[in-house]
């Protein structure tokens, strides 16, 4: 039985398996299927300063080994989260991390500031990479300048672990990672979804109401793995890897490539208990290969 404990900066995880924002609700949606406190961490839905109705439907299209979504950050706003949702989930015995999105830098700052004071929210994940809203999100994550700027401003007000979630829709993701590291990000998570599109040929219409949407699932895994590998080589802060993880082998690949921990997104839809299976699979891998601790496999790729 290997040791699964691992830290991301100040954040202590009982194991490196977490669930990705927007795919796991607030956690409680899955509690019928398993003991969600066994997971290393839960990244809750994208939260914005004010309530958002999100995009019109249809918001989803299935693609080969993946899916496109165009949810568009539907949520009731940070105050509703603090007053109504936080009290319901704060006692879950794992790391609850809030994914923070915004249309302007001020939105990010204000939202982060409010979350700073929640005792049981040890970290936020700054989503500068959502491809599904016109006015913001991804735009911040696609140039070093804007990424650096938003991180700098949020860092000023947010005192706990600051994770910055990077967009894969860029020429050089390491550059962006270095830029946010320089401004005080404690760690980076990647990847968010890739901008994609689906068409119904018979109807000659886009499938999504927004024409384009974010691609996730195993289809993107090779790209995510490459980016985690590149970023892990470039930065000194911990990297959280995600994108298409479906099983323990996938998770281990990300860790070998340099991820300190991983998140599971779309796979939750296929198997709500997948995160538990991945935890067990990693444990089994450590045993079979004689590793004492999961820390030993981080970046252990032999090249």
């Amino acid at each position: 039985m290997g040791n699964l404990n691992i830290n991301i900066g100040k954040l202590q995880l009982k194991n490196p398996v977490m669930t990705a924002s927007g795919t796991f609700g607030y956690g409680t949606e899955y509690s019928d299927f398993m003991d969600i406190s066994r997971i290393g961490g839960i990244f809750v839905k994208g939260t914005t300063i004010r309530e958002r109705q999100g995009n019109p439907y249809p918001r989803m299209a299935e693609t080969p080994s993946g899916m496109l979504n165009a949810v568009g950050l539907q949520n009731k706003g940070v105050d509703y989260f603090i007053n109504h949702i936080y009290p319901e989930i704060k006692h879950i015995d794992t790391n609850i991390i809030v994914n923070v999105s915004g249309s302007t830098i001020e939105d990010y700052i204000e939202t982060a500031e409010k979350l700073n004071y929640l005792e049981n929210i040890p970290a936020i994940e700054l989503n500068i990479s959502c491809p599904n809203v016109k006015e913001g999100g991804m735009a911040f994550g696609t140039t070093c300048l804007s990424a650096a700027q938003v991180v700098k401003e949020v860092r000023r007000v947010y005192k706990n672990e600051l994770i910055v979630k990077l967009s894969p829709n860029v020429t050089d993701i390491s550059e962006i990672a270095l830029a946010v590291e320089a401004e005080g990000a404690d760690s980076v998570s990647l990847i968010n979804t890739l901008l994609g599109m689906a068409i119904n040929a018979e109807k000659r219409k886009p499938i999504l109401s927004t024409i384009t949407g974010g691609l996730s699932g195993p289809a993107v895994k090779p790209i995510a793995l490459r980016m985690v590998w590149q970023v892990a080589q470039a930065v000194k802060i911990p990297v959280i890897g995600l994108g298409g993880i479906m099983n323990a082998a996938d998770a281990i690949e990300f860790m070998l490539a340099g991820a300190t921990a991983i998140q599971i997104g779309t796979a939750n839809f296929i198997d709500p208990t997948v995160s538990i299976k991945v935890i067990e699979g990693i444990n089994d891998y450590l045993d079979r290969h004689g590793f004492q601790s999961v820390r030993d496999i981080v970046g252990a790729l032999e090249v």
Partner: protein
Amino acid sequence: MKKYMLDLIIKENKQLSDQYSLLILTSPEKLPEILPGQFAEVRVDGSATTFLRRPISIHYVDYELNELWLLIQVVGDGTKKMAEIEEGKSLNMLIPLGNSFSTPSNIDSKVLLVGGGCGVAPLLYLGAHLKKIGFEVNFLLGARSKADLLQLCEYERLGNVFTTTEDGSYGEHGFVTQHSVLNSSNFDYIYTCGPTPMMKAVANYALKTSANCEVSLENTMACGIGACLCCVTDTIEGHVCVCTEGPVFNITKLKWEI
């Protein structure tokens, strides 16, 4: 209601036609409580093109025989694989999902269950439920042709069955909303499931006749349990998830142009 991930076993696969299969599933354990109108998210194995689970209505539950029925219409690869599944194999599903049809508080209410195509599926279980409580159940079932009118004798066992076919090969000729019973009778509660244009026409009729009306909506679903927000519909309360707040909606809640 507690949700489960279960592997149910195919006890029988009645291929009703090229396009339709009735799956009768069972389990070594007692089936959980399921309400009329709820659905399952079914995992399809062995299809290279089917990645996500597929939402399928609960057609019927027989607690005595510990049977759960699904009625499958083949429209793509996922439903094709399901419709072809062999007896003895199992299907993995999340169940029971969604809300349910409501029950009229007054036992004298006249109820009508209007189904079109494969949308008839959830109405069998609803009809059985209403009958058990003591309602007189009326079904109005429409389809393209006689071959698409499914499970008729099952419905007939539960109540009065009125039918229409678009080609006139069975019952009255035309659409459900043109059936003469709608002129000759008045209903207090109307439940409907089927193609959206049909449900809108039914909703329209219900509004005109001041009947209470509940529709069962479809939507593109990823999780089926309210986690992904992919399946919203527009209501007077804003965007809500069809998989948790629905699939059944009272038409007064919807922002439908009817």
